[in-house]
């Protein structure tokens, strides 16, 4: 009996700071400004602008997840030859952590300095090569401007998630394949490919979830409009009209959670499949 007591502080903490806010976030969507129960807030989810922001969130997450997974996968592939404790591996591991878990707002500034109106790359391309990347308008502070900064944290996350799977490929498998006369193509298409597929797809979903829930980079970059769902929640939360919009934020939050739920279920299914080969 005593030992159950040891769990209570943590249980209470999680109850107050995870369970209560989650329930409140979802719950507020079901109440009107006057406190009465209603489904009215969910009408916002059929608003073309809100629907557009969901669509934008989904395609930008999907695009940066696919490109991030491919580039991060290539980088992991290139790193398998590096010594696990070597300086190169340590540098890439640390840099990946910094960009994927610490960057946020600062990555937005990095790209303002790079491809902003006065950015190094913008100016170099314009003055040296005569290429104006903003010939059709400044897109950095719009939706397309999110793609490069997002990739800047998606690729490192892919390395963090996928490199362990890449390293679990045993040398013996490649040797067995070679002994039996298999070439590189056979090895990758018949052995390594199928083994890595669940890990790769799982990582892809995690990257999608990561971009979909990301707020800081977009908030720092886009100050006007609310092109993606997290920014819709921002404008609902800080709206001057007050309480009524908090309920809209709740409805938007529920919409986001539903998308996340689908993604995370897929992720955990793939994770279980991937675990088979990592024993």
């Amino acid at each position, binding site marked *: 009996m005593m030992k159950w007591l040891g769990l209570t502080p943590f249980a209470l903490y999680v109850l107050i700071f995870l369970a209560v806010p989650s329930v409140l976030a979802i719950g507020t969507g079901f109440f009107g400004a006057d406190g009465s129960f209603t489904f009215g807030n969910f009408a916002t989810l059929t608003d073309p602008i809100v629907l557009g922001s969901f669509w934008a969130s989904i395609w930008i997450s999907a695009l940066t997840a696919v490109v991030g997974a491919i580039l991060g996968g290539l*980088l992991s592939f290139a790193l398998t030859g590096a010594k696990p404790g070597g300086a190169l591996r340590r540098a890439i591991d640390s840099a990946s952590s910094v960009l994927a878990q610490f960057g946020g707002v600062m990555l937005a500034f990095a790209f303002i300095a790079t491809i902003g109106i006065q950015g190094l790359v913008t100016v170099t391309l314009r003055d040296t090569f005569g290429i104006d990347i903003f010939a059709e308008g400044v897109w950095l502070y719009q939706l397309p401007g999110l793609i490069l900064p997002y990739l800047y944290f998606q690729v490192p996350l892919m390395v963090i998630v996928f490199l362990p799977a890449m390293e679990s490929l045993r040398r013996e498998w490649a040797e067995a394949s070679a002994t039996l006369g298999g070439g590189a193509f056979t090895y990758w298409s018949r052995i390594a490919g199928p083994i890595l597929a669940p890990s790769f797809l799982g990582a892809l979903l995690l990257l999608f979830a990561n971009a979909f829930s990301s707020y800081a980079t977009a908030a720092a970059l886009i100050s006007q409009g609310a092109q993606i769902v997290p920014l819709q929640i921002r404008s609902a939360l800080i709206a001057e009209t007050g309480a009524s919009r908090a309920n809209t934020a709740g409805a938007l939050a529920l919409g986001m959670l539903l998308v996340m739920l689908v993604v995370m279920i897929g992720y955990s299914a793939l994770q279980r499949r991937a675990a088979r080969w990592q024993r």
Partner: protein
Amino acid sequence: MSRGSKPAAPAATVSGQPPTWLRRTILIVLCGLFLVPLIAMFEFTLRQQGGGYGVEHWTALVDPENSRMYRNLVKGIGNSLLLAVITVGIVWVLFLPTIVLVHLQFPRLARAFELLTVLPIAIPAIVLVVGLAPLYRIIVQVLGGDIWTLALAYGILVLPFAYRAIVSELQGMGAKTLVEAARSLGASWFTVLWRVIVPGVRRGLTSATLITAAVVLGEFTVSSLLNRVTLQVALVEVSKSDPYAAVITSLLSLVIVFVLLFGFASIRPRGQRVRRPPRPVQQKKEVGTHG
């Protein structure tokens, strides 16, 4: 260098291993691309008002005359450091004992517990903040509006990272046997935790501490929407009037955190390889407890 015309040496390139030239090309191209924004940040901070390069924006940042302009930034840095310390405290005092307890005493809860620690990833911070806003209106009344209360929300955000870092070390050290031995010799739970577990998971705990600090120092979503001044909130604020100060501070933060993480990764654990049980034994045991 006739690589292709030497079929007599098959062992040199097993098909699973990428050829060196390909590895190098991928590494150089991708790492090069990833350095561009950092170089651009540095170049940006060196631009002078009237054209040309110099350090005027760097010296302006430490100039006492500008201290009023950067007051909020300094406050944000102070607040974020304080929050990092308190959140690390939560990890040490609350998370570590609970993780150890679940691992040793309630192995059946382990899966549910693991699922719980994934929730803060599945529930985006921007969703959580919708519920944290009304919660904090109550917290402000009960505990006051001081900045430290924000660390209570941050603990949840770092839970997934802290859990993973600690639990992998815990499984690696063969905690169960060691704890039983210590208990049978009459050690109290506190002694076991402090003198057996903590030294055993030292590496995982250090990495949990570093990642916690990194996540807290980089946090923006919750603090900005709850109107608290943290490093990132102050950065966005100052960037509107003085982009140079924002870029300098960002670049410094990124480099400092990188150096910290890299430095930690470079510390070789003393005699760890000898002390640890060999891997196959540990994994067999793990399969056994699950089955």
